C-alpha cells in the first residue's frame, strides 16, 4: 500500500476544508481572496502530483483505490475544469460573500470526481459519485434569492437522488451476484459467465447503465439536464457539463470496460442503444432552443452519446477514443460557456442565443474561439472534436457496430443545424438597438479562459499523437496494465 500516491485526492480534500475555514477568518483580504487562492494552489499542486505519480498502477487502501494512468489522466481533466470554473466565477453573484463555501464545494466535488476516477471498489465509486453530486446540488441552488436557481437545485436533488438510488440498487445486485465490491474481484468472479441464468447480474447491468447514464445525462435519463443547466449559475453549469460528465464516463469505463469486461457481449448493445438515443434526442431537441444554456445542455446530452460509443465498443481502443474525446469535449465546452458567462455580465438577457448577435464581429478573437468551439463540437475536420469522433466511430466500426457509427454521423449532420445557427447569429446577426446593456465590467479572467480553451482546441488536434499515446496507456491501465 502506498499512501503517497493518493496525495492528489488528499490535497484537494484538504484544500476544500482549508478554503472553507479561510472564509471564516476575520480579516477582509483572507475572506475575499483566501479561499480562491487556496483552491487554485491546491488544484495546481494536485495536478503536479498527478503528473509525478504518472506510472504503473499503485493499489491503495487494500485495492479500493487504483492509482493508475487512467485516474491520473482524469485527475487532470477534473482539475482543469475546476480551475477554469473558479476563474470564471470570480465575479459570480452567487459566490460573493461566500467565497469559502463556493471554493470548498467545488473542491469537494472535484475530490469526489477524483475518487470516481480512481475507484477500485463499488463503495468508493458510490461515495465519490455522491460527494460530487451533493456538492453540486448545493452549488446549483447557490443563488438562493433567485427562484430559478432554487428550482434547479431542488429538481437536481430529487431527480438526482432517484438516479443515485437506482445506481445503488444496481451495485447492491452486483455485490449480491459476486459477493464482493472490489472491481478486480468482480471481474474474476464473472469470468467465463454469461447473463443467462443470472438474474442478479442481469438486473445489476440494467440498473447501473441507467444510474450512470443519469449522471452522464444520456437519454432517456437526461430530462433533468436542460432544466438544471438553465437554472444553475453559469460557471456551475460549465462545471457540471464538463467535469461531471467526465466523472460519469470514468465510472462507466471503470465498471464496464474494467469490471464487467468478461460479459462484454451482453452489455455492449444496451449501452450502444443508450448512446444512440442520446445522440438522436440531444441533437434534435437542441434544434429549437433559444437559450444558450439549454442549447448547450441538449448538446451535452448528444455529446454524452458520442462518448458512450467508446464504452459500447468495449475495447481498449474504445476507451482510448472516449478519453481523447473527453479532453476535446472539456476544452470546447469550457470555451462555449466562458463566452456565455462574459455575455451574461454585459447584457441582461446574456444567456440567450440572441445576446450573441453580432458579438463575433465586435470581439473577433472571442468570435474565433466560439467558431472553433462550435465547429469542433459539430465534429468539423480537422479540429479535435472531429478527430475524437473519428476515433469513436472507428472503434464502433471495429466492434461490429456500424449502425452506431451511422447514427453518430447522422447526428453530426443534425447538430450542424444549431451549432451553425449560433455561429450565424454571432457573425451575421444584428442586435436590436433597444437591447438592454447591463454594463458590468466584463471579467478579464473569463477572457483568459476563453482564449486558452480556443488554443487548446487547436493544440489537441495538432499534437494529437502524444495526447493519444497518453490516452492509450491510460486506457490500457483500466485492465490492470
Amino acid at each position, binding site marked *: 500500500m502506498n499512501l503517497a500516491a493518493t496525495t492528489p485526492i488528499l490535497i484537494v480534500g484538504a484544500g476544500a476544508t482549508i478554503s472553507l475555514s479561510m472564509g471564516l477568518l476575520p480579516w477582509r483580504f483572507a475572506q475575499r481572496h483566501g479561499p480562491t487562492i487556496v483552491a487554485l494552489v491546491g488544484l495546481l499542486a494536485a495536478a503536479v502530483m498527478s503528473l509525478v505519480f504518472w506510472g504503473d498502477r499503485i493499489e491503495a487502501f487494500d485495492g479500493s483505490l487504483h492509482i493508475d494512468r487512467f485516474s491520473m489522466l482524469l485527475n487532470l481533466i477534473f482539475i482543469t475544469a475546476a480551475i477554469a470554473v473558479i476563474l470564471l466565477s470570480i465575479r459570480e453573484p452567487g459566490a460573493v460573500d461566500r467565497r469559502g463555501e463556493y471554493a470548498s464545494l467545488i473542491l469537494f466535488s472535484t475530490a469526489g470526481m477524483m475518487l470516481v476516477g480512481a475507484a477500485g471498489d463499488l463503495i468508493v465509486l458510490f461515495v465519490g459519485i455522491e460527494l460530487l453530486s451533493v456538492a453540486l446540488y448545493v452549488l446549483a441552488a447557490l443563488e438562493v434569492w433567485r427562484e430559478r436557481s432554487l428550482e434547479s437545485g431542488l429538481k437536481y436533488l430529487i431527480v438526482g437522488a432517484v438516479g443515485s438510488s437506482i445506481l445503488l440498487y444496481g451495485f447492491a445486485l452486483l455485490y449480491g451476484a*459476486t459477493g464482493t465490491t472490489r472491481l478486480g*474481484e468482480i471481474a474474476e*468472479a464473472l469470468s467465463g459467465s454469461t447473463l443467462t*441464468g443470472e*438474474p442478479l*447480474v442481469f438486473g445489476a447491468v440494467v440498473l447501473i447503465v441507467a444510474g450512470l447514464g443519469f449522471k452522464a445525462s444520456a437519454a432517456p435519463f437526461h430530462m433533468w439536464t436542460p432544466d438544471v443547466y438553465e437554472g444553475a449559475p453559469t460557471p456551475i453549469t460549465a462545471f457540471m457539463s464538463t467535469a461531471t460528465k467526465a466523472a460519469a464516463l470514468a465510472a462507466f469505463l471503470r465498471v464496464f470496460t474494467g469490471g464487467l469486461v468478461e460479459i462484454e457481449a451482453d452489455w455492449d448493445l444496451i449501452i450502444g442503444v443508450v448512446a444512440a438515443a442520446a445522440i438522436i434526442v440531444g441533437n434534435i431537441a437542441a434544434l429549437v432552443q433559444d437559450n444558450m444554456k439549454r442549447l448547450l445542455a441538449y448538446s451535452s446530452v448528444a455529446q454524452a452519446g458520442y462518448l458512450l460509443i467508446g464504452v459500447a465498443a468495449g475495447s481498449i481502443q474504445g476507451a482510448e477514443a472516449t478519453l481523447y474525446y473527453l479532453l476535446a469535449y472539456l476544452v470546447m465546452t469550457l470555451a462555449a460557456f466562458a463566452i456565455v458567462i462574459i455575455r451574461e455580465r454585459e447584457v441582461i438577457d446574456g444567456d440567450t442565443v440572441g445576446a450573441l448577435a453580432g458579438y463575433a464581429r465586435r470581439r473577433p478573437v472571442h468570435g474565433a474561439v466560439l467558431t472553433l468551439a462550435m465547429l469542433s463540437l459539430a465534429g468539423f475536420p480537422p479540429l479535435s472534436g472531429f478527430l475524437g469522433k473519428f476515433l469513436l466511430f472507428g472503434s464502433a466500426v471495429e466492434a461490429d457496430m456500424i449502425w452506431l457509427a451511422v447514427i453518430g454521423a447522422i447526428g453530426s449532420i443534425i447538430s450542424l443545424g444549431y451549432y451553425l445557427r449560433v455561429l450565424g447569429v454571432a457573425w451575421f446577426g444584428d442586435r436590436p438597438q433597444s437591447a438592454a446593456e447591463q454594463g458590468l465590467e466584463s471579467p478579464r479572467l473569463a477572457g483568459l479562459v476563453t482564449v486558452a480553451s480556443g488554443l487548446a482546441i487547436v493544440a489537441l488536434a495538432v499534437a494529437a499523437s502524444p495526447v493519444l499515446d497518453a490516452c492509450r496507456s491510460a486506457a490500457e491501465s483500466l485492465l490492470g496494465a
Partner: protein
Amino acid sequence: MPAAVAGVGWLCPMELNDYLPILVFLVAGGVIAGALLTLGLLGPRRPSAVKETPYESGILGATPVRQRFSIDFYMTAMLFIVFDIELAFLYPIAVTLRDDGMLGLIVLLVFVFTVVEALVYVWKKGALEWR
C-alpha cells in the same frame, strides 16, 4: 470463482434456477406500483371548500390547523441528523482500532478533525443560535 456465481439456486426458495425470481420481482413491484398509481385515478375527485376544511367534530376550527414550525427547528434537526450519523462511523472504527495500528489512528483523527471543522463552521455561521 465462477461456481459462486453460477449457483444462484439459493436465491429462490423453490428450485427454479431460471428467470422466475426476476419475474416475481417485476410482478410484485409492478402490482404495488400499478395499484398505487391507478387507485388514485379510479375514484372521482371533486374537491370543494367544505371538504378541504379540517374535521373537528363538526365544530368549525378556531385556530389554523397547520402550525408553522420555526425555521430554527428545521436547522437544528438537520444539523443533528448529520452529526449523529457521521458519528455512527466511530463505532466500526472503535471495533477495529486495535488492529489498525498507527494508520487507523491517523485516519480516525482526520475523520474527527473534519467533523469538528464542520461543527466550527456551523457555529461561526450562527446556525446554533436559537432566535
